[in-house]
């Protein structure tokens, strides 16, 4: 075994999670440099043991549960959520029905109005006559003219 190959085994050997194979053991006995290096890496790892991490605080679980509850409240997203909430679905259906009814009522009202027709056509002329009749029936000046003509005829027979 060469030093390079042995060096790759060092982390696990130094950590103690792996035992040196016969080949690695032979290299270790014959190579002072690798033996010294392995020993120093072992000591370095012991030094790293001094860096301790704290335990999770007593509030860890409580906080996580609260965050999970928030997470669950958010999901499931999308329009399918409506199908899972009957009350909201009912309100939405009623609003939709009212909206459609109002729209149709408005549409029908528009349908009942006069049909636009071009002047000169039969329908156009009839509509024009209707308008004139309305105009003349409200035109007081014409009544005055008629009554004045009758007076003139009476005075000068």
């Amino acid at each position, binding site marked *: 075994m060469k030093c390079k190959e042995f060096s790759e085994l060092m982390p696990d050997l130094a950590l103690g*999670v792996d035992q040196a194979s016969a080949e690695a053991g032979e290299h270790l006995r014959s190579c002072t440099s690798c033996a010294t290096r392995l020993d120093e890496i072992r000591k*370095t790892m012991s*030094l*790293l043991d001094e*860096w301790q991490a*704290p335990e999770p*605080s007593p509030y860890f*679980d409580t906080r996580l549960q609260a965050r999970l509850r928030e997470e669950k409240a958010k999901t499931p997203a999308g329009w399918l959520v409506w199908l899972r909430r009957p009350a909201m679905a009912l309100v939405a259906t009623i609003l939709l029905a009212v909206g459609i009814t109002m729209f149709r009522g408005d549409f029908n009202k528009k349908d009942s109005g006069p049909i636009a027709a071009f002047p000169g056509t039969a329908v156009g002329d009839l509509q024009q006559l209707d308008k004139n009749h309305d105009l003349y029936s409200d035109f007081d000046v014409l009544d005055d003219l008629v009554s004045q003509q009758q007076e003139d005829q009476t005075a000068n027979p």
Partner: protein
Amino acid sequence: MSTDGLSDADVMLRVKAGDEPAFDYLVQKYRRPMVSFMYRMAHNAAAAEDLAQEVFLRVYRSRGSYEASAKFTTWLYRIATNLAVNHARDTRHERPENMASLDEADEETGTTMDVADTSPNVEEKLVKQERLKAIRQKVENLPERQRLAVLMHKYQQMDYKQIGEVLNLSESATKSLLFRAYETLREQLKEFI
């Protein structure tokens, strides 16, 4: 919930199927390793807890897409690593170069970052604190992948294969990476050995 004979991946598949106690089981099993991993990445107990919680939230969010193709821990540490690296990058300029003093109490917990010290001698205590400060600094100064590999190997007891899977490296590349990292630490911490 009985998890006898079940691997973590099997338990996660139960979570995927809507088994809430299965998720609690995984949280209880991995909360401590997650907090300690994040603590060594974030150097702050409160941030470590927040990040560890975020890991579990992401696990929960991703439960639907979980595939038991890899070990559960590989998947878990991939999530943790991404979060920790992003956090480290985001807060790089917030942390002083020499890091917080070990005498300073943590903002939230009120505890010092040091380990329990039983030595009665003040001088010994100061030496120990200096040593701890150096350890933290030297690990922090390692290149990102080397730092992650050391934290997973030394403190999370993960093997080369798992570390390689988390970091997307071959087993051989992981061994080399770890050797280089420990060599750097050996050189730089020589005075304390």
